[in-house]
């Protein structure tokens, strides 16, 4: 039978997970980059989750081997949905990959539980945006080297605006302009089954930038910001967009993601990140797209979160020297340029973004300027994933509904504070 096996597998997995657990200890200590590259030998594993970036990462390994011929790096790929589950399983049995990708929401969990080696000696923090260094430090210790970064901007479809006879967006737009233009777009394009916006009602792409622009906050001093009046106003803005039928509801979004509508020419604009550039270039509307800074909040302020992948190394790696050498190389200019030229990611290394900006005929500089001028760190705590789930479970279904966001926000805040209180 197919299904019964599944439960057995899960329970076995559960049992195996817990059976081999032990308290973390720091085996790697304060590692340093070895002096003589030729003397460094070892087999190490590098875990990543993005298949689109795999070719570029292989290029990086090849370049690394020119200097360090004695180190064999195997790339291990798992899809994002399973990536962190797999890592936690591996960590429980002291089998973490030697070097691996990390993201903001999961970082503190791994760092606080002594799974990561400190990396301050391996890369110069000056080379990366401050917000990213902060994202990968815990209690003043640096545990991750920023790999790339993403910010949010306004994407729009020039052709659909022209078809609708509506004036194109400008960099001076406010939320009111966004809403009133959406109304016009809905009248003109709605009958053709085209949405005014393809916003996905996600935290990183939609609420966080809106909340921060409006002067609200998501988490501050270990307390939730979802009860804050400014935060609630920002959520209400998105709720209204859905209620008016400008933005697909969460239910409609579960059917077809907003970005898929946008890239199919079925939505005219959206707030989204620079990780979509390669998808945009492959879409049928690739020649009609343009990018502008996000619309401003009523106060005239504009903010985006900045997030990026970090390269980290296991505290218990069996080849600390080889892993340190590789991590240091990953954090360097050469590795950054390889990734930028491939259009794989927008590298975090200061001054290497030009190649990425040139990789598509859109105003990609907008994302770089956003990072430098009006970005705030991605909100995290010790166990971010737990309250991220609260956000999706409670806020997402309520957007566009009759329940005022002040009630929803208060509920999220209460539950989130409870979760934050349990963090260790």
């Amino acid at each position, binding site marked *: 039978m197919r299904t019964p096996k599944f439960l057995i597998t899960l*329970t076995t997995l*559960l049992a195996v997970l817990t059976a081999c657990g032990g308290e973390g200890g720091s085996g790697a200590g304060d590692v340093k980059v070895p002096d003589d590259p030729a003397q460094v030998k070892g087999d190490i594993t590098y875990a990543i989750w993005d298949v689109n970036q795999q070719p570029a990462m292989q290029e990086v390994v090849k370049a690394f081997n020119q200097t360090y011929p004695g180190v064999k790096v195997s790339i291990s790929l798992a899809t994002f949905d399973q990536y962190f589950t797999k890592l936690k399983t591996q960590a429980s049995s002291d089998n973490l990959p030697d070097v691996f990708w990390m993201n903001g929401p999961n970082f503190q969990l791994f760092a606080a539980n002594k799974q990561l080696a400190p990396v301050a000696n391996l890369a110069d923090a000056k080379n990366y945006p401050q917000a990213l260094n902060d994202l990968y430090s815990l209690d003043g210790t640096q545990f991750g080297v920023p790999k790339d970064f993403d910010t949010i901007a306004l994407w729009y479809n020039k052709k659909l605006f022209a078809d609708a006879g509506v004036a194109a967006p400008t960099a001076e737009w406010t939320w009111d302009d966004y809403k009133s233009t959406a109304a016009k777009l809905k009248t003109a394009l709605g009958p053709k089954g085209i949405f005014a916006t393809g916003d996905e009602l996600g935290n990183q792409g939609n609420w966080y930038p809106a909340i921060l622009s409006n002067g609200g906050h998501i988490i501050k001093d270990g307390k939730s910001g979802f009860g804050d009046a400014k935060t609630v106003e920002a959520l209400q803005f998105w709720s209204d967009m859905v209620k008016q039928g400008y933005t697909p509801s969460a239910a409609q979004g579960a059917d077809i993601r907003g970005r898929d509508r946008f890239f199919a020419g079925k939505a005219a604009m959206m707030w989204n990140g620079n990780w979509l550039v390669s998808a945009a270039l492959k879409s049928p509307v690739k020649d009609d797209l343009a990018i502008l800074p996000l619309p401003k909040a009523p106060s005239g302020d504009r903010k985006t979160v900045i997030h990026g992948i970090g390269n980290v190394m296991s505290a218990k790696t069996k080849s600390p020297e080889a892993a340190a050498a590789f991590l240091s190389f990953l954090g360097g200019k050469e590795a950054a340029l390889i990734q930028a030229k491939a259009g794989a990611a927008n590298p975090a290394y200061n001054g290497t973004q030009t190649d990425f900006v040139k990789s598509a005929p859109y105003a990609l500089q907008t994302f770089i300027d956003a990072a430098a001028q009006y970005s705030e760190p991605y909100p995290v705590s010790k166990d971010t994933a737990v309250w991220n789930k609260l956000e999706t479970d409670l806020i997402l*279904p309520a957007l566009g509904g009759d329940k005022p966001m002040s009630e929803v926000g208060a509920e999220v805040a209460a539950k989130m504070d409870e979760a934050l209180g349990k963090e260790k």
Partner: protein
Amino acid sequence: MKSDGRWPWLFVGPTFAGVLVFYLWPLGKTLYDSFTEIGPFGGSTWVGAENYSRLVADGEVYRAILNTVVYTAIVLLGIPLAVVFASLMNRPGLRFAMVYRTLFFLPYVAMPTAISLVWRIIYNGDYGVLNQALGVIGIDGPTWISTEWFALVAVGLVGLWMSIGFNLIVLSAGLKGIPSELYEAAALDGAGRLQQFRAITVPLLTPSIFFLSVITTIAGFQLFDMLFALLGPTNPVMPKTQSLVFLFYNAAFDNNERGYGAAVAVLILLVVGLLTLFQFRFQRRWVSYD
């Protein structure tokens, strides 16, 4: 009686070791874990019955039980349907019987995830085939996979559709075991096809039907993969549609609460165990082995 010595153990050994390592030990371990709190990277503390008192107080659990029961009930409807299909298909002289059998069985051998992706397209609110068809007769269909209750029914229907193939195989085997003299005798006595179906086919199929209802109930309570693939973990109605196993997955793997997850797993085991026990007790009333 003369002992057989050590030889029997040699033959039973491998299977026994497998059962011990992959079934019994994890079972015991899960039971133990359900009384502990386990950190995200291992290390457990004994917390007594705390996970269970939380389980009782957790409103999500009751909704998950209800959802699982509704899903199982829908899938169980596949058994009477399959009885009808099986007896139609086993009529002597039916042409293309092999074709029908293949068509019915195909969904069962296909991968649930792949099937889920196809059904996602069928159920799509704006462009899906289902709503297009409903539109023809003037019904404005919902966004099936993201509307409360509809989503659960949508998953249940796919589960039902997938289970028919397996049901048919079991029931066809059962039908083959019914002596044709019975039908001939009934026909001589003037019984019509429908009467034959009621008086001979169904009663003599009850052992197969009983087997299927036990298996289907157990499988129904383990609903997870289709929910995950058809609805998607971030679906807005997921909190109102999740099954018990989904709850377990969330606790153990998303929320890093493996002790609580283990308690949910024990609950699933208990519920399934009780239901199966009940079915075995109740079978005397309706299953005939003559």
